[in-house]
């Protein structure tokens, strides 16, 4: 087995005069969970589509499972599975029919296919609903079937593009559990894009932070976070009952403050640099008439890493996408929080 499941060299995709993916090179080890983190339009989906042979690179090359994505696209397809942003399922067909038809496209013999379908339905505890039409399912149920659909051919590499987008917390957790299980039990290499920091943090062995078509950082979540905590950056959460725009503006004007964002009605998160950051922040809040109830020194998250590197937040740009998927179940994660980057 190859050491690397995926290798890209200067992979580039240009749409008109918009460079979606800009000379990206990285390697994904066989058996690892590789997270892509970045805002909308950063090029995550385009990268995945190129690796899945759905889109031809403008420049550069890549191999998936040891096969060239352009010259040996058929071989690549045999070895991969894809959960894309839109669900790949036919609403008028039952769960079992959907799985069967996709299985047939992979030339799986009838007896094995039947057994595998039952096994996969069992994996997500959907046996009871196997003969109901997909159209009658909730988004969470649909996504479970959508995920096991990709496992029908036992792919070596699984691409998951925002697999928990628009799902309720419980369904999200289940999907995450399945992903972990697939990775651990079958040794499947998993490429995951997500906007949920926690998800990327928990699932990924390594995370690539992608912004404006370029990979700006690539390491294990722990190491990435050290980039923030290891530098002289402080992340504080302040609870200010009489929070006002003036306070936020005051904080923003401080030279050592990198970013300010509101997390809840009275709470703000401040990322700042320098030795005197803490004192400066407290002073600035007081000067603007704010009363500080509590101050918490936060462990940096991947969100902070992104902020630290790019100076912007991931979350704000994700919200429209959740609405776009627009399913009836579960509001988007952290809906209603609005945040301000610098």
């Amino acid at each position, binding site marked *: 087995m190859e050491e690397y499941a995926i290798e890209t060299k200067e992979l580039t995709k240009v749409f008109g005069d918009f460079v979606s993916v800009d000379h990206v090179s990285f390697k994904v080890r066989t058996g690892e969970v590789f997270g892509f983190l970045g805002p909308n339009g950063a090029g995550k989906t385009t990268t995945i589509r190129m690796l899945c042979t759905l889109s031809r690179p403008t420049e550069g090359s890549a191999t998936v499972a040891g096969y060239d994505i352009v010259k040996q696209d058929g071989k690549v397809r045999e070895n991969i599975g*894809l959960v894309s942003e839109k669900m790949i399922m036919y609403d*008028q067909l039952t769960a079992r*029919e959907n799985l069967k038809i996709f299985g047939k496209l992979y*030339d799986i013999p009838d007896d094995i296919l039947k057994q595998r379908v039952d096994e996969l339905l069992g994996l997500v505890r959907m046996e009871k609903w196997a003969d109901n039409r997909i159209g009658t399912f909730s988004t969470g149920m649909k996504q479970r079937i959508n995920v096991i659909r990709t496992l029908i051919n036992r792919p070596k590499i699984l691409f998951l593009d925002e697999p928990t987008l628009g799902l309720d917390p419980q369904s999200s957790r289940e999907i995450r559990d399945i992903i972990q299980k697939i990775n651990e039990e079958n040794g499947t290499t998993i490429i995951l894009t997500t906007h949920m920091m926690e998800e990327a943090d928990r699932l990924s062995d390594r995370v690539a932070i992608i912004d404006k078509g370029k990979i700006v950082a690539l390491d294990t979540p722990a190491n990435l976070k050290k980039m923030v905590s290891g530098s002289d950056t402080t992340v504080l959460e302040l609870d200010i009952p009489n929070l006002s725009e003036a306070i936020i503006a005051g904080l923003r004007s401080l030279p050592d403050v990198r970013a300010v964002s509101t997390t809840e009605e009275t709470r703000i998160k401040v990322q700042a640099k320098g030795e005197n950051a803490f004192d400066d922040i407290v002073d600035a809040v007081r000067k603007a008439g704010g009363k500080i109830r509590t101050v918490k020194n936060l462990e940096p998250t991947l969100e902070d890493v992104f902020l630290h590197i790019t100076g912007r937040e991931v979350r704000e740009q994700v919200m429209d996408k959740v609405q776009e998927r627009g399913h009836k179940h579960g509001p988007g994660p952290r809906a209603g929080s609005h945040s301000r980057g610098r």
Partner: protein
Amino acid sequence: MAVRKVLKHSAWIAYKDLLEFSRSRMRLVMLILMPLFMMVMIGYMFPSGNTLKHTPVAIANLDEGYNNTSYGETFMAQLEMVNDKTDMMDLHKVDDYEAIKTRIQDGEVNGGIIIPANFSKALATGERGEITIITDQSNPQLSMTLQGILTATIDQMGTQKAMGTLNITYNVSMNSTMATIKPYKVQTRGIVPGNPNYFEFIAPGMMAMVVMMSLMTGLPHAISYEKDIGTMDGLLVAPISRLSIILGKVMAQTTLGMVQGLLILVLAMALFGVVVYGSILLVILLLLLIVFSFVGLGILITSFTDNEQTASMIMMTLMFPMMFMSGVFFPLQQMPWFMQYIARCLPLTYATSAMRKVVVLGADMPSIMTEVTILLVFGVVMLAIAVPMFKKAMSR
């Protein structure tokens, strides 16, 4: 081996499409209703020959009489008698030309008849009596028909009058009066028994058209729909040939098109008295040939469209000229010369013509060889252009 795999995969995709289709009750109902509607609507919509019923016509008798005889009155009575039998017209008596004009302008009548003031005098003094027919120019089709009917009726009335005159005045026996006035007798006969009816004219063309539509609209629609809902990615990421995807869709659409085409045939035979004089097998083979000749065009449109809306627009633009210019509803010979040239470039023209020859005239294979060859060549050329285009379009 590779071919078998491609076919197997496409069969599964076709199966999937048809299964989806069969689950949608609405689409099933439409599949059957569409041909039925088309048949009934088009069959009754176009005027077929001289089948006017109760057409309002104004008549003005201005005849002043001559020597106390009014041939105008006699003419009116005769016309009413003829009309009572056929019910072609509703006759309204009016006073003068102005009244007829107003009534036509108001849309109350579709035409008028004027018996002039000197009608009796002319006839009594050995001249011909003149009858004027007023037409409604805003409705050329109807005017033409009405004009034809009135001319024929009045002509016949004249003949009868002449026969009477000959018999009385010159003592010619009644039997030979006809031979004297109208020595030529015309008889019309087709090469197959029965009277031609309009359904027989349109049914073959409609079969060809429905099959064409299922490919030209159904195919781009089926593919752009899957692109829009995102399932196309699932097919594209599977290790199957791109050809399987399009072939599967073609199979499904062909099935639906054939069902509709044959449904039209059955409806035409059962409800509208259409008789197929040729072989039914040839009809089916011809339908399949039409499928083949339009597959390429369907795929070509598909490759150019990236979403459903564009697909619909392109299809509409192509479909309408095809429908109306290929002789499905009107005979080609009735079109102006340049339209006829355009019509000769449309494959549907040949499909319709071949189908009509087989269904209506009972033609066999050698008689439709030209059409078959043209359709085959068109199909091959289109496929040769379309398949590479499609492959290119699928890997953007």
